[in-house]
């Protein structure tokens, strides 16, 4: 019933495409080797966090360039609860979401109450992420700059409750997460707050003249976005089994996770997912090509990557998905 509501109004072609892609993703581990599986997990991870970021930017119009802070807070929270309290990460996740949402609320409150917007808001988010990075570097009970480690698991058994297991287990978990995020965002967009977010994104003052409490709506967007991102942080921590502030909170992480949605198409539902596929696919393909051709200089891959980014943003300013959707005939009035 909820699914029916979610699917209402979609052109038939889109549904067929969706079904095909979903089937392919479910079947993927059988057709993949270890390497490909890791790549797919990375893609789904970026698809998921990209979608979470998209809630703030694409839906509510707030540009966050420090989103890695929520990944880090989520990861550290769940990891600490697991290591120090022995509680499973699904319980730790509740704390992770709460902490990240609170952090987002603080940033949002400071920004929206004091009318910090646009570029200034973006810089504010960078400052907070950097603050966290340096702060966690000095937090000795969470490992400091030397890193925080989770006890490495025995991969023979899959323990979903404690998030210890094979890459295949993590793959399916990420797939479920990504699909859940997709459905959640779709439902949000069709709800009252979804419409309000889009109005705020288009013209905040006009939105207020229609009775919309823009402060409250923006705060909700930030909290949801932060909370969703924190869940990814939990998986990040338990998949890699270690957390280093220099890596987790670094501005490159923040930039990395927004490339997908921007390339794919901000504000669209498929954009972040398509973007993640394109970027990770491109990255890995180039890695392999360069290694094969012997031109594997450190930095070469990044240069080509940068050039591709440049090309996409110059030629397809709204992102790849809107362009692609009209080409393959699945486009409809996109919210």
């Amino acid at each position, binding site marked *: 019933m909820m699914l029916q509501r979610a699917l209402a109004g979609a052109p038939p072609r889109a549904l067929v495409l969706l079904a095909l892609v979903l089937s392919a993703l479910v079947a993927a581990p059988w057709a993949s080797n270890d390497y490909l599986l890791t790549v797919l997990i990375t893609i789904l991870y970026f698809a998921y966090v990209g979608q979470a970021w998209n809630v703030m930017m694409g839906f509510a119009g707030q540009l966050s360039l420090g989103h890695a802070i929520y990944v880090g807070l989520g990861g550290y929270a769940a990891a600490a609860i697991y290591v120090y309290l022995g509680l499973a990460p699904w319980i730790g996740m509740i704390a992770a979401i709460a902490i990240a949402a609170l952090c987002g609320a603080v940033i949002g409150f400071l920004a929206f109450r004091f009318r910090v917007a646009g570029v200034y808001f973006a810089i504010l988010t960078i400052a907070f992420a950097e603050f966290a990075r340096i702060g966690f570097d000095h937090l000795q009970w969470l490992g400091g700059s030397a890193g925080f480690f989770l006890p490495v698991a025995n991969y023979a058994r899959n323990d979903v409750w404690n998030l210890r297991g094979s890459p295949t287990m993590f793959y399916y978990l990420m797939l479920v997460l990504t699909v859940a995020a997709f459905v959640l965002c779709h439902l949000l967009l*069709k709800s009252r707050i979804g419409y309000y977010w889009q109005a705020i994104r*288009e*013209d905040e*003052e006009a939105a*207020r003249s*229609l009775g919309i409490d823009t402060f409250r709506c923006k705060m909700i967007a930030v909290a949801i976005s932060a909370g969703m991102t924190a869940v990814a942080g939990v998986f990040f921590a338990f998949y890699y089994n270690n957390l280093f502030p220099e890596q987790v909170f670094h501005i490159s992480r923040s930039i990395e996770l927004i490339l997908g949605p921007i390339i794919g198409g901000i504000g669209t539902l498929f954009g972040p997912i398509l973007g993640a596929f394109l970027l990770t696919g491109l990255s890995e393909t180039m890695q392999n090509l360069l290694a094969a051709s012997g031109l594997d200089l450190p930095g070469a891959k990044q240069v080509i990557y940068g050039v591709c980014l440049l090309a996409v943003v110059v030629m397809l300013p709204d992102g790849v998905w809107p362009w692609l959707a009209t080409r393959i005939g699945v486009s409809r*009035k996109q919210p």
Partner: protein
Amino acid sequence: MSALLDVRGIGKRFRGLLAVDNVSFAVARGSIFAVIGPNGAGKTTLFNIIAGAIAPDRGSIFFDGAPIDGLPPDQVCRRGIGRTFQLVRPFPALSVEDNVIVGAMLHHHELAAARAHAHQLLRQLDLFDRRGQIASTLTLPDRKRLEVARALATRPKLLLLDEVMAGLRPVETDRMVLILRNLSRETGLTILLIEHVMQAVMALAARVLVLHHGAVIAEGPPAAVVREPTVVHSYLGAEAV
């Protein structure tokens, strides 16, 4: 019957400029009230103060018996005042239908109900056929009617229209006048409008307020006001009489 909108002694200064100077007037329930005057007379500032976008320096505003001066725009809207903007501001990337749905969501929290209400308004404002079109692709007259529909979707008791006829050809002006007159007559909607197009003012308004340099220089039924010497001198010109 007490007035729906009661403006008392509103004043607003922007650094050196006294934009609104001790303006007082009352708008009767169900009537159409026009504010006219030369450019820079303070009309839009007055509107912005009533709508909550700017706070007045002094004075008070009563709406339906309760004070609203100093309230933020979203709360003013929830009390029952809708507005349009001098430079039209529909949500450009949203469709015509979605624009109005946003307004309708104030009182209809479910999408289906909001859409139904939106469709009803779109039909009234002659935009139903274009409901799927993206707002930024509409012509100016259509965008103006869209903004009116959107404001109406919030079920206001009072509608503030800021130069809604500007840029319209005479035929379109007549159409808009007809729509507004019907709205007022059929739903009891009170309308306060800023206008330069005197043909519309004469056709619609029961009472007219004339502002000049932020101050009221005349108020009354349109036929009387347009004859007053101060009004003729400052705004209309002798040919108008």
